[in-house]
């Protein structure tokens, strides 16, 4: 009984730390996803419309990033580049997770882009739009809608990979949990008669619960977005007359 009390007390006392850490995790997810989206869209364009050489370079880029553990990429940015350029833990992690995500997002978008009829591209070109503008104005808005299920998946993968930033000292949810666990009991609960060790179970379950809550919230939001931006009357499994 007293152990549960002490754990609850601890959690309550460390609420600000945990909330800050949660905010950091959210920001890191958004930054990584945003970087991944910007680069992923460019890569999609190059993979489909680029010259032979460009296509090969882009293919190699995707291939390398998909084949490298993201933690190593984080280390390359933080420690490797850190010799010349101090990016700090947040930016290093955001870039690393973002680049990795760009390779996967490009794969998701490419499938969607290829499913949109080439006649629409030709129609855009016929109006006098450049290829790049046709892609950005006509193809991408449709491709992003079609990509939402895959994108939601990728979003949650990036979210669940944010604890990797712990390794370079970013105070995200997992690091916050460790820090709370490391606090000496006596110092934290002065004047109290509660003794005993803090249960790691409780802390890490709370960390897991926080991720799970974020996962739920964002899955719901993305689902809501996909409903909101649904094209009226448009059925995904198209039937052509």
């Amino acid at each position, binding site marked *: 009984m007293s152990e549960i009390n002490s754990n609850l007390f601890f959690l309550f006392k460390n609420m600000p730390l945990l909330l800050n850490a949660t905010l950091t995790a959210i920001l890191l997810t958004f930054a990584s996803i945003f970087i991944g989206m910007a680069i992923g869209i460019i890569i999609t364009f190059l993979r489909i419309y680029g010259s032979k050489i460009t296509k090969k370079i882009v293919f190699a880029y995707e291939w390398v990033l998909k084949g490298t553990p993201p933690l190593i990429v984080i280390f390359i940015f933080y420690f490797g580049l850190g010799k010349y350029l101090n990016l700090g833990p947040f930016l290093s992690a955001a870039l690393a997770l973002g680049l990795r995500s760009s390779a996967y997002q490009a794969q998701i978008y490419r499938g969607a882009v290829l499913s949109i009829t080439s006649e629409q591209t030709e129609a855009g070109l016929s*109006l006098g739009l450049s290829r790049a503008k046709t892609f950005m104005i006509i193809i991408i808005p449709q491709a992003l809608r079609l990509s939402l299920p895959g994108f939601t998946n990728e979003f949650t993968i990036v979210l669940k990979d944010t604890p990797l930033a712990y390794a370079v000292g970013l105070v995200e949810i997992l690091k916050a949990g460790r820090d709370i666990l490391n606090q000496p009991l006596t110092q934290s609960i002065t004047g109290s008669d509660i003794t005993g060790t803090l249960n790691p179970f409780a802390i890490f379950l709370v960390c897991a619960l926080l991720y799970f809550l974020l996962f739920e919230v964002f899955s719901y939001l993305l689902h809501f977005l996909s409903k909101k931006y649904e094209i009226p*009357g*448009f059925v995904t499994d198209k039937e052509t007359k």
Partner: protein
Amino acid sequence: MEENLLIIENIEKAFGSQKVLDGVSFKLNKGDVKVIVGPSGTGKSTLLRCINLLNPPDKGRIYLQNTEITQLPHSKIPSIRQKIGMVFQHFALFNHLSAIDNVALGLIKVKKMNKTDAYEKAMFELKRVGLDQHKDKYPAQLSGGQKQRVGIARALAMDPLLILFDEPTSALDPELIGEVLQVMQNLAKEGMTMICVTHEMGFAKSVANEVIFMEKGKIVEQGPPLKLFTEATHPRTREFLSKISELYGESEKK
């Protein structure tokens, strides 16, 4: 030099080892309506796509208003395409945009018109094809004939020098063909310059000033529709046209 709107000189186009166009030439004046017919796979669509440089020809020259457009640098091509409208077999409407946005897009993004003017112009063009009531509907909410009319309005909005029609009615249910042909006929009567790949012989008879019969990448015969229908010199032309009239004869008598 005479004032031809479009001159096509001996163009050739091959896809791989397959020669699709093998020396095609013709001229077009302002207000002309040319109908191109021929068996499938003879390069009719490719010819249209050569003209607006979607598939630039391998050899030969194309002049638009006496300016050669076949040797232009890539950066100049969009400004040429802007002047040539294109209507597609499968409509090619932008699925994520409403009818009026489909029509206004080129005006806003290419002609850099301000939005008020662009929507006013788009509305005018939708009225012209009889779809002002449906301006807020999305392509998936329109019938085939309505979609194609939006496609025509989209091409018209750019005030093109000429419009290319690539089998505009062949993907439509029979009862929807009439509304699209009606719009095309009206345009022809208003003096729009048009090149139509179509097998609608009634349309050809009523508004075309020349019918071109193509086979295997070459022009076999060309001439005014009545002449071609009644006294074609080439046996292949006669054979093909009589087959086409049999198949499409009924829908045109309206």
